[in-house]
């Protein structure tokens, strides 16, 4: 067990950012900490990287207690994310060399590691240029390289692709996968469900400071049960009408996805039948739609099932009644799923 978190709590004044969080990560694994903005992900990472002390509970990294053995923890971890360590007026090479010096590698080793990492992250040609001339993707890679300069045993990546364009994001995923292939233990926070799906072995879903689900991405998808029929409404103004038209079809209440542009109907095991029913109902109502699809559930659907609200806070409001239902269904289902999760495969890890 390389990361162990037990009953972790953190309050800032009256605000409880974490209300008793447990999880653990085995060496060489990737844990995806998933949740909307403000769920408590970043607070968890800040505690694990010794930046803030916990208000309660315990957290250990490589066997060192983050509150009482912070100096030892800092020697075995790396933290990267949103290019925060980069001095824009220095070159890529200088940035990495200085990071190496600040990890106490010594001058020559720092220089050697910096050159290696520039090569490895496809930045060798840009190494002599000031970092402020880099693209967003290059900056994230440089930042990641800086956090790897001392070969940390555990790497924390805080929203490593937030704000990147899709192409750079896919590039970053490639870089992260390669790292993991070499055995680095990784804790990754993200609000992109797709990203956790792509990269993480185990996913812990956090909402309002508590763990509401955990497991592999497949476990979580099974929990939603069955396929999803999804379509976009051509006339955005008629989205609400579309939701009403298909309200009685499928299982549960149809919802809007995170972008607010697509309607999702959960089909359970009757994917084909529900698809036909949806098409008929929409046709009868004279609603033109596009991108009709029957697909396996995504983690977005999982999130919706678990919390009753979509993952991206601040996105378009969910379907009618979605907000209202959120508190109750979130609590109730969250508790149920949590209990279920402790009986699942990763229970062995937790104790």
């Amino acid at each position, binding site marked *: 067990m390389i990361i162990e978190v037990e009953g972790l709590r953190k309050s800032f004044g009256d605000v409880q950012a974490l209300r008793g969080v447990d999880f653990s990560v085995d060496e060489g694994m990737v844990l995806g900490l998933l949740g909307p903005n403000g769920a408590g992900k970043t607070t968890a990472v800040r505690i694990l990287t*010794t*930046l803030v002390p916990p208000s309660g509970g315990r957290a250990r990294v490589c066997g060192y207690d983050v509150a009482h053995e912070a100096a030892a923890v800092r020697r075995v971890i790396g933290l990267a994310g949103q290019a*925060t*360590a980069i001095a824009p007026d220095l070159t890529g090479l*200088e940035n990495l060399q*200085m990071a190496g010096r600040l990890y*106490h590698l010594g001058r020559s080793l720092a220089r050697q*590691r910096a050159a290696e990492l520039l090569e490895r992250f496809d930045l060798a040609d840009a190494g002599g240029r000031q970092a402020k001339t880099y693209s967003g993707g290059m900056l994230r890679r440089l930042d990641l390289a800086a956090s790897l300069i*001392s070969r940390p*045993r555990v790497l924390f990546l805080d929203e490593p692709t937030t704000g990147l364009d899709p192409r750079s994001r896919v590039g970053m995923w490639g870089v992260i996968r390669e790292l993991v292939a070499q055995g680095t233990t990784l804790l990754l926070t993200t609000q992109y469900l797709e990203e956790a799906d792509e990269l993480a072995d185990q996913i812990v879903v956090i909402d309002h400071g508590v763990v509401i689900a955990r497991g592999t991405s497949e476990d979580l998808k099974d929990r939603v049960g069955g396929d999803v029929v999804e379509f976009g409404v051509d006339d955005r103004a008629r989205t609400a009408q579309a939701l009403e038209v298909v309200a009685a079809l499928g299982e549960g209440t149809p919802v809007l996805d995170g972008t607010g542009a697509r309607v999702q109907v959960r089909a359970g095991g009757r994917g084909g039948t529900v698809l036909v029913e949806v098409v008929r109902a929409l046709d009868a109502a004279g609603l033109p739609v596009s991108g009709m699809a029957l697909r396996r559930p995504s983690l977005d659907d999982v999130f919706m099932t678990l919390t009753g609200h979509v993952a991206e806070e601040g996105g378009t409001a969910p379907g009618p009644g979605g907000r209202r239902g959120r508190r109750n269904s979130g609590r109730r289902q969250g508790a149920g799923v949590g209990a279920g999760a402790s009986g699942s495969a990763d229970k062995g890890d937790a104790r």
Partner: protein
Amino acid sequence: MSGAQAPALPGTARALSEPGAGQRLRWAFEDTMVITWRNLLTWARVPAYIVFTVVQPVMFTLLFRYVFGGAINVSTFPGGYVSYLIPGVIAQTAGFASFSTAIGLSRELNVGGIDRIRSMPTARSAVLLGRLLADVLRLLVTILVMVGVGYAVGFRFQGGVGYALAMVALALYLGLAVCCISAFIGLQVRDEESVQAFGLIWVFPLTFVSSAFVQVSSMPSWLRGFAQHQPFTEVINALRVLAIGNKVQPLVGQSLGSALWQSLAWVTGAIVVFVPLATRAYERA
């Protein structure tokens, strides 16, 4: 615990055994040097910073020398207004140099750079000390440029090399104190725009309501008391005697000993008070 990990680097392996006090002190020193160098490199590469630290003080010097100087009567002063002015304008520059301390720290705090360094084994003190050291070194460059410009427009050190060096050292010491205060402001206020607004505002009355540009005796009586005894004036009086020599003690209205003693007390006092405050603000930020 260590499975199929890549072999640890020598540096990390050494780091895993608990370092002794001597080792930690050496690292703290090296970390401070690395961060100082990082700040100085940044400064050297941004034209705006160079304007701020070199061009602006030179403009002030020339402005007072040629525009306002003619209207300011210090005819009894040996060497005329330019000799009176240079020590004053150097003290003012030492005050303004602190601006980058506040801005630099609040900016790093806001982009998360300070958090990042805190998650590293880097000495906790290095960020603050590296910032202060870089700013003081930069002030040294500014002062040397100003002395050069001063020489071009008629200023001369008249008290000998020892006094001249002491003047530069005292100006740097003043700069360090103001930078400590400024570091506290930057870390406490945090928001960069507020720092832009408040970072310097307190320096203005201290530098202008002083003996820097005009003789205190020319000010209205209600202002004179403050102007005569506030710390900048004490430091400027000492700088002036060091620059021009003991002969100006009567004109300055203070003996070198008394001016020096009082300025050192003020400056040291400010450092003693604000270093712990800035450190605490840094720890909490």
